[in-house]
């Protein structure tokens, strides 16, 4: 870590809003968490995949011997959060007289839950006003997230992406995250690897941002540390409860850290690529990350020791000579990202991304980055990722 003088010269701001409950029979805390928010009847929103894996049954079991009645389990969500399903769920919510929302799953499920929450709390028929920039008044109904193995990195952020459009608002923070090994197991190696890649990208972004912020570091540190320990085992054995739980924890923390640090270059690039090709964000990031890190190593931008500390751990960090730490940190991070190759395609070419798309993607990313980096830089990274030579 840097000498404090540089760490505290500038002002910083920090917020880690959601409460995290993680571990053995964490699910059984749900009734108490609901009661703590004065709620008795939650609407559960989840995806077909989750339901198919029988996780909804586990959730229901967790409510046994409690005063809670589950308003409904709305489970037709696929891989997309859209207004039409949000409207249906909102209708269920009001018909059953629910007073809280539980999102069982990750990515689109959480986004949808947030959308439903806005619809029912703000009494709106559509999200149109918010697309047009109307702020969400809030406070919204209590929202509890029970993440599954798959995450898109937006769960713990004060934002939602519904119908491919992002809406940001303080009131979109979920109140509680309940992580339980029975639920956080992954479907397949690739699905774990994808959420791992996203978490990795976010934690990396947080730990390498220019303006140092001890609290964001403190938040991103355990995330990256957990990933370094558990990601590979989780990818190898997706049904391993302990590893799965650890990765899910890392994902939540990374996402929360990213909410403070802002999305970094690699993330913007990945999103642009995913949008253009229809390949999932996780795959894109998994491929891009090593090359993005490589690009950072070549650039002269200073990198803080926090990164090295997080990925190397106390012992490892102490063993590395002081001046080598920043570089070593990047190296190890890149190595960690490269390990995902066991479950993800090695290059964009292997993914059969059409070559003529790379230029427009690079431009789109550069445009979205608001001048933080140029199209040329993006194109260079994409080019290397396409042929997969670092």
């Amino acid at each position, binding site marked *: 870590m840097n000498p404090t003088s540089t760490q505290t010269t500038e002002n910083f701001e920090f917020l880690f809003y959601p409460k995290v409950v993680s*571990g*053995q*029979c964490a699910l*059984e*805390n749900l*009734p*108490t968490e609901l*009661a703590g928010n004065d709620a008795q009847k939650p609407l559960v929103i989840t995806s077909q995949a989750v339901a198919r894996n029988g996780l909804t049954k586990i959730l*229901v*079991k*967790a*409510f*046994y*011997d*409690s*005063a*809670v*009645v*589950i*308003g*409904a*389990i*709305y*489970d037709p969500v696929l891989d997309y959060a859209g207004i039409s399903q949000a409207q*249906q769920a909102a*209708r*269920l919510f009001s*018909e*059953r007289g629910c007073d809280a929302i539980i999102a069982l799953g990750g990515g689109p499920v959480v986004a949808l839950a947030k959308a439903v929450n806005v619809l029912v709390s703000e009494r709106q028929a559509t999200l149109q006003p918010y697309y047009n920039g109307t702020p969400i008044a809030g406070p919204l109904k209590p929202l509890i997230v029970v993440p599954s193995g798959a995450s898109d990195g937006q769960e713990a952020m004060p934002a939602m992406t519904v119908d491919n459009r992002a809406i940001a608002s303080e009131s979109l923070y979920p109140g509680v995250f309940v992580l339980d090994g029975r639920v956080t197991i992954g479907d397949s190696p690739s699905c774990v690897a994808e959420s791992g890649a996203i978490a990795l990208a976010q934690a990396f972004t947080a730990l390498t941002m220019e303006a140092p912020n001890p609290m964001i570091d403190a938040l991103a540190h355990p995330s990256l540390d957990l990933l370094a320990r558990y990601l590979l085992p989780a990818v190898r054995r997706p049904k391993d409860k302990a590893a799965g739980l650890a990765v899910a924890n890392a994902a939540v923390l990374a996402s929360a850290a990213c909410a403070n640090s802002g999305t970094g270059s690699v993330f913007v690039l990945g999103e642009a690529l995913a949008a253009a090709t229809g390949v999932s964000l996780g795959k894109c990031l998994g491929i891009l990350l090593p090359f993005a890190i490589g690009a950072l190593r070549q650039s002269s931008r200073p990198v803080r020791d926090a990164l090295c500390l997080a990925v190397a751990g106390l012992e490892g960090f102490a063993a590395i000579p002081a001046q080598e730490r920043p570089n070593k940190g990047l190296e190890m991070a890149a190595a960690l990202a490269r390990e995902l190759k066991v479950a993800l395609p090695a290059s964009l070419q292997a993914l059969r991304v059409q070559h003529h798309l790379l230029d427009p993607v690079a431009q789109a990313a550069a445009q979205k980055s608001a001048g933080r980096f140029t199209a040329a830089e993006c194109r260079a990274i994409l080019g290397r990722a396409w042929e997969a030579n670092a």
Partner: protein
Amino acid sequence: MNTSRYPEIKPGQKWIKRFYLAIMLWTVGKAIPVAAKVDKEVKKEIDKLPNNFTLRLMVLPERAFPPFFYAKMLPAFVADKGLLPYGLQMILHKDKEGKLHYQGADPRGKKFDLSMAFKSLEAAMMVFTFRESSPTGYAHDRFVVEGYLPNATIFMRVLDIVQVYLLPKLIARLAVKRYPSWSEMSPLKKHINRIIIYVRAFTF
């Protein structure tokens, strides 16, 4: 969309676990007053509690099941076991003379100076199957304390000792932080007390 595809779900009951916990609570409840008589350590702790003091150990949610007016029809020996009507409860009362009594599981018309509530059935199971010692349970927020915290710590100390008496060493080790050594409790005394407690707890 026809909403019948997404029915309302009323969660059920885990009967076996309820039954197990009911027995445990009942046993502990009966054992503590006896222990308070035979073991000076326990006595010392109990004395720290103010007189005319009612405390309870329970499992949330506290609710009548089946509702009260049915419960009234149930024979007392069912009700007192805390099996059915009032959720799972163990009520102890320290009277004016400072004697401790077990008062079954019926909270009606009682006012509690201290009540410790397990957040959920599973949380109670964690502790009462000794997967978590009571301090760990406390650290993991398995139960919430209502009332004056120092009294709670006293009560938990009492629980520890009583567990040492009730359980074979192998299990008791898991239940307490540090198993009492020679200095604190001589094996002979321990075994004698243990027998007394068992006999008196289950006879009258």
